[in-house]
């Protein structure tokens, strides 16, 4: 090709790129402020949700996950904002309100429509709220997290058994270093804060958490996980969680050194309607930066 034609083509391409980017830039700076919700939109949307929200069994999903301004208006309600809502355990919620800013909610509508019953869509200025109903939602009958105070905790190292006797600030302290306790925490697991029981395993030991007289029903559901920071920090050991009912193991769950809330479910139908002892045992080969936690609930499905 003639060099001059080549250069002319290059110049036309360059000029086109610069021109397109320039037009796009101005378009973006005009569009961006126009697409933002106003304070009034937040107020009206939150008022609408509050009018329908049952604090015991409903939830709000923020779309996008970083739309944290909603906490100024509905911070007292149950809000979740995981990166990927489709990976979450939503079975225990009766109504799910998708709070959508910048129309991000549209991206998750197919997931919700497939799994739940669509109830209503409402628009408040630049905010949209979608309500979904879960016709088969599961009632939470007992939460191991909420009942931590009633637990009996032991650290078993060979023949040595140490009872954890001090309960303070929602934590059972077992002596030893600062991190050796079983306690309520909200931890950063898979990019979102999750309520769970901190139970950092100890090399060569088993941490045993016993809950007496647990009213069992159809299932025990829960998750375990390592904090994102712990997974990032080292090539650490897996953590093992064993769950027993009346000292009979019903689940042996391995938590790999991977980011995520690793869900588990145990069918407890045979025990339905009676009280039993439930024991969680946590262990690992090497306890370096094993910032581990788990939680579980007794649920009854409809």
């Amino acid at each position: 090709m003639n060099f001059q034609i080549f250069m002319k083509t290059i110049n036309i391409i360059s000029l086109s790129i610069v021109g397109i980017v320039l037009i796009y830039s101005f378009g973006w700076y005009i569009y961006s402020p126009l697409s933002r919700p106003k304070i009034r939109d937040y107020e009206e949307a939150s008022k609408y949700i509050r009018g329908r929200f049952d604090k015991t069994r409903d939830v709000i999903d923020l779309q996008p996950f970083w739309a944290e301004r909603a906490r100024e208006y509905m911070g007292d309600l149950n809000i979740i904002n995981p990166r990927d809502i489709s990976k979450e355990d939503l079975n225990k919620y009766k109504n799910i309100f998708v709070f959508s800013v910048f129309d991000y909610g549209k991206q998750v509508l197919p997931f919700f429509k497939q799994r739940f019953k669509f109830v209503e869509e409402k628009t408040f200025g630049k905010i949209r709220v979608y309500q979904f109903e879960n016709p088969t939602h599961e009632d939470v009958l007992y939460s191991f997290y909420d009942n931590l105070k009633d637990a009996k905790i032991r650290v078993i190292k060979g023949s040595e058994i140490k009872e954890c006797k001090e309960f303070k600030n929602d934590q059972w302290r077992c002596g030893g270093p600062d991190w050796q306790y079983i306690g309520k925490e909200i931890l950063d697991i898979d990019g979102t804060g999750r309520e769970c029981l901190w139970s950092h395993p100890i090399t060569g030991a088993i941490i045993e958490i016993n809950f007496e007289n647990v009213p069992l029903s159809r299932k025990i559901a829960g998750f375990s996980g390592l904090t994102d920071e712990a997974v990032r920090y080292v090539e650490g050991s897996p953590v093992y969680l064993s769950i027993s009912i009346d000292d009979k193991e019903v689940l042996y769950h391995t938590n790999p050194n991977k980011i995520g809330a690793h869900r588990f479910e145990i069918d407890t139908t045979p025990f339905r309607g009676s009280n039993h002892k439930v024991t969680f045992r946590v262990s690992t080969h090497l306890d370096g930066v094993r910032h581990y936690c788990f939680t579980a609930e007794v649920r009854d499905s409809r």
Partner: protein
Amino acid sequence: MNRNILSRKDYLIGLAIALIYIISLIATSKDIGFVRDEGYYFKAGEQYNGWFVELWDNLKKGKPLASFTKANIDKYFSYNHEHPALMKELFGFSWQLFTNKLKLTSNSTGFRIPGMLFGGLLLFLMYLFGAEFFNRRIAILATLMMAVIPRFWFHSHLACFDVPITAMWFFTVYAFVKSLYSFKWGILTGIIFGFALAIKHNVYFIPFLLLLYIIYLKHNEIRFFREKDGGVSLSIPTIPLAFFSMLIFGPIILIGHWPYLWPDVFERLGTYFNYHLHHEHYPVSYFNITYDRPPLPISYPYVITMITVPAVIWVLGTLGSLRTTFWLLVQWIKKTPNIYSTLESRAFMFLILLNAFFSIFLISLPSVPIFGGVKHWFPSMPYFCILGALEFEALLKFIIGFKPALIRFSRQIQYAGISLIVLTGILGIIYIHPVGTGFYNEFVRGTRGAADLEMQRKFWGFAGYYELDYINKNLPPNSSVYFHRTNYDSYRMYQRDGFLRKDINYANEPDNATAATFHFQKAYMKDLYKTWRWFGNRIARHGTYIDEVPMVQTYVRQ
């Protein structure tokens, strides 16, 4: 390479741009919270200034030597000795002058003025450089493009080293090029380099880049030849005076300006170098992953530049870099005459390319500690903007050459082009101000797109400032606040400058605090969750948002 003689008009244009820039920075300084480093430098500036005040008193008493004892030097200069003292001394002098003596500014603005002056100095030098080696149009566009990069504009407000070192890097390279034609500049280059060394350690790389430039420029004079006795000799060109000058004045100014070194020069210099060779890592979020130890992905500084410089400026800079590289390669491969037909002009463009990419390249190396922010490759940006302005010039010539009828409107076309390009940067500044670290460009749909990609938008603890109004009006007397990433020295300065109530106490943890300001930084999300747990609620009482993306929120104990 053409060298234009700079006229008085050029100096006036450069000065006008610099002055307008400095005034805009001073006028908006009070909008911007104190970054963590500033907290330390405010304190250091005041302490270092104390030594000079005492020295003056001792001189008047006829006992100047009392200031030079090791104990006395350490008393004033041992704080924050991991960086040279020049900027902190200037922060202190400026505070002493503008705040204490003239009562013109708040304490913080008094400390910040030197940083702003260096921002203005850079623009002044960029204009002169462009006007001297290219033309006024290129000079103006390159300078204005640099001025309106939103992150650079943010950093230009701060009492930190990053903008000053960018200015002095540019000044050193500029002086070196001039030194090839002038004995005076040969000497001055060393002095300028010495002051650059006294600001920050980035500039230790400059001599190597200049050496590469000289090798390119004079490679024809580098010859191996066979001696009559059969041996091989190497003939090298004359070494420019500036290198000797840098070698002499560099260490003299570095050691001379920094009293902390004087009691034990070698040991303390060793400590300084050692600190930077084993620098701590700062956590950085990049595409949903938080990196808190090397290596960062090699793509990091390139991608971050692509999405944090206004889109059209990035496009022009990139196209300009490609075009310049293309012409240099064409000349090298085909030896055909082109726009860079002389060796001198090719070497000069090579120098510009080298400087435009060296700092970015350096940060991309896997062995480099994780410093994080764009400020660490600011020294690349003036050259990147010059390459962008050259691209604009090439396209302008093409448009006019394409349609000769447009010659009549060439002036209007260039004004319109420059205005539109610069306006996108100004819109970027308006969009992000005053949370400059959150700026992401149109390519990723701004800060909201960066939030989708989980890029780092907020760090350095300065945004706590935007919550102070809420705290002042709403917290009960003697409350303690967990300010999260805002450090104690910044908190003290907020109180000193009257931005924060005097009865508000600083809490190190949320456990015993009445309220907490949480800075949205992925690596520290655990602190938000800790706050929720300790406070027993998740109700944000106030927040600062850019495009609805949270920067900081305030929580209050129930």
